[in-house]
């Protein structure tokens, strides 16, 4: 009989303990990043859109009915079973050009965005971590200069000088002209992070500066970096289209920008070939919409306040 209260107590204690543990573990386990992104309906739509584009680009030879540069079709044909969107003035299949064009846009978006993000990351983090020193002054000055110089005239000038205009040149030129905004944001972010306790602790334990910057601080900025990457990729896709529209695209392949350039140069509008003009811009707009939708989901990562009504 004397054991009962103790037993009761034990039992009670057990369940209470179990409950606390459960609560703790529930509150302690953060949502996985893809769960957070996926919780936003917009981001889900965005992921689906971009996935479709990626699949089409990867399997372009299987999806496209013809070779995009094959000019053996009847010129100026309307949409038909063989030429889904009709043909151009020099007898190329518009639908196939459209499908192969996705490769250039995605390639430039991926690598242009990646390179711009890496540059902005390195410059922003070093400059922010070295705040107040001469290193920061120089890097901040370079960033501010790069920020005020209008990008398109500079890109045009750089590309116009090169004889060979491959897709990698375009990626490179876009990246080195578009990192500044991201670098500034990352510098501001790192300045708020570098005085936190965990950074001080890392300093006292004798970690090197590079390790503190890239191993301690950077993981805390990953959502910001992800958002910046999506933004930079979107910008790169737009910049490629702008260059191509001026006739400065990759001469070896077809992109949506070069399609618009040719449509304009060969008078598609006066000849009433509206599909030729309409569709490349439309698929470009849908891709960019999909990417900005994904960024709504990525924003949820860095700002938990936005998550509630997602």
């Amino acid at each position, binding site marked *: 009989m004397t054991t009962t209260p103790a037993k009761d107590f034990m039992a009670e204690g057990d369940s209470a303990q179990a409950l606390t543990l459960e609560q703790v573990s529930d509150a302690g386990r953060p949502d996985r990043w893809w769960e957070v992104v996926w919780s936003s309906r917009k981001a889900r739509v965005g992921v689906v859109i971009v996935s479709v584009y990626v699949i089409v680009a990867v399997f372009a030879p299987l999806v496209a009915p013809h070779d995009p540069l094959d000019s053996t079709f009847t010129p100026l044909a309307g949409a038909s079973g063989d030429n889904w969107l009709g043909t151009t003035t020099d007898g190329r299949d518009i639908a196939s050009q459209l499908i192969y064009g996705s490769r250039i846009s995605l390639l430039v978006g991926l690598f242009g965005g990646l390179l711009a993000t890496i540059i902005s990351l390195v410059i922003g983090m070093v400059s922010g971590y070295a705040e107040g020193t001469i290193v920061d002054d120089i890097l901040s*000055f370079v960033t*501010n*200069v790069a*920020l*005020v*110089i*209008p*990008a*398109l*005239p*500079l890109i*045009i*000038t*750089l590309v*116009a*000088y*090169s004889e060979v205009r491959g897709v990698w040149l375009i990626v490179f030129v876009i990246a080195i002209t578009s990192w500044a905004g991201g670098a500034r944001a990352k510098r501001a972010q790192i300045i708020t992070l570098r005085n936190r306790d965990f950074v001080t602790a890392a300093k006292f334990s004798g970690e090197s500066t590079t390790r503190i910057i890239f191993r301690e601080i950077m993981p805390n900025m990953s959502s910001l970096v992800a958002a910046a990457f999506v933004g930079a990729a979107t910008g790169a896709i*737009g910049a490629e*289209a*702008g260059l191509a*529209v*001026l*006739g*400065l695209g990759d001469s070896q392949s077809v992109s949506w920008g070069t399609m*618009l350039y040719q*449509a*304009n140069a060969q008078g598609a*509008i*006066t000849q009433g070939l*509206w599909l030729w*003009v*309409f569709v*490349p*811009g439309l698929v*470009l*707009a*849908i891709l*960019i*919409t999909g990417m*900005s939708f994904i960024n709504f989901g990525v924003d949820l990562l860095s700002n938990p306040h936005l998550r509630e009504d997602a």
Partner: protein
Amino acid sequence: MRYFARKFGFFVATLWAVVTLNFLIPRLQPGDPAEIMVKKLAGKDAQLDPAQVRAMRAMLGAPDGSLVQQYGTYLGELVRGNFGLSYSYYPFKVTEVIGQAFWWTVILVTVTQALSFVVGVVLGAYAAWRRNSRFDSVVTLGSTFLGTLQPFWIALLLLYVFGYSLGWFPTSGGYEESTPGLNFPFVQEAVSHSFLPALALLIVTPIGWILGMRNTMIMNLGEDYIRLAKAKGLPDRVVALKYAARNALLPSVTGFALALGGVLGGAILVEQAFDYPGLGRLMGEAVENKDYPLLQTLMLLTTVGVLVANLVADLLYGVLDPRARRAQS
């Protein structure tokens, strides 16, 4: 005073950086750019005035002499306003060719920039004031969607619908038969030719203002002074305009000049589509004809234009906001 000195110092330093960049770009390419260009000019079977050739060599980099000497000559010619001769419009000077196109772009960009600022700020402020209303979601979603469209594509669609299908507006150029100048037929033609290019720009450019203004305004509306103003019983209109919107305007002023770079990029593409006789079309022509002196001068000119606009915006911001003057000094 230190604020203004610092801003002016940044302007001078940036100007120097841009001028130097402009000097270095042709020299980053393999081969001797000056040699290639001089060859090109000689191939145009024209009598070359030795003085002009010398001027051009200075601009493009004389093949003889060290990089430092070239840089010195380049700066000297720049100060004297000598930018060399255009290839595609030979034997006209680059400055003369640009002078023809200059005002077309400046007027187009200034008018659309000013209009889109007003439109964007008003729409953004109203959307923030009526946050989560139907108006707000239409404006926010609408600008997100319009922001994904390419300026060149919008221009082509406008051209297709209003130029060719409906025939309401002329489809290319800047004017028809009138003589350029301040006479009524010319102004009328110029306006009707500029309408569609301006519209194409106006579809894209206000978006930054709308979203920026909406965000700052929403932030300001959460501040205590707004609550106090409401508690005092001030009418909604006064709280919205004199308290919230007025303060939210400040960041937009600095944004004004930075956005100019983007508008300029849009204008280059739009001018291309409409064959509008401005700097953007000239840039396209320069690219197509490999008219490097023209291209580089255009790059320099547009960049310096944006820099000057930035300086003005910074100085204005210092006058408008005393906090900016005190901070960091």
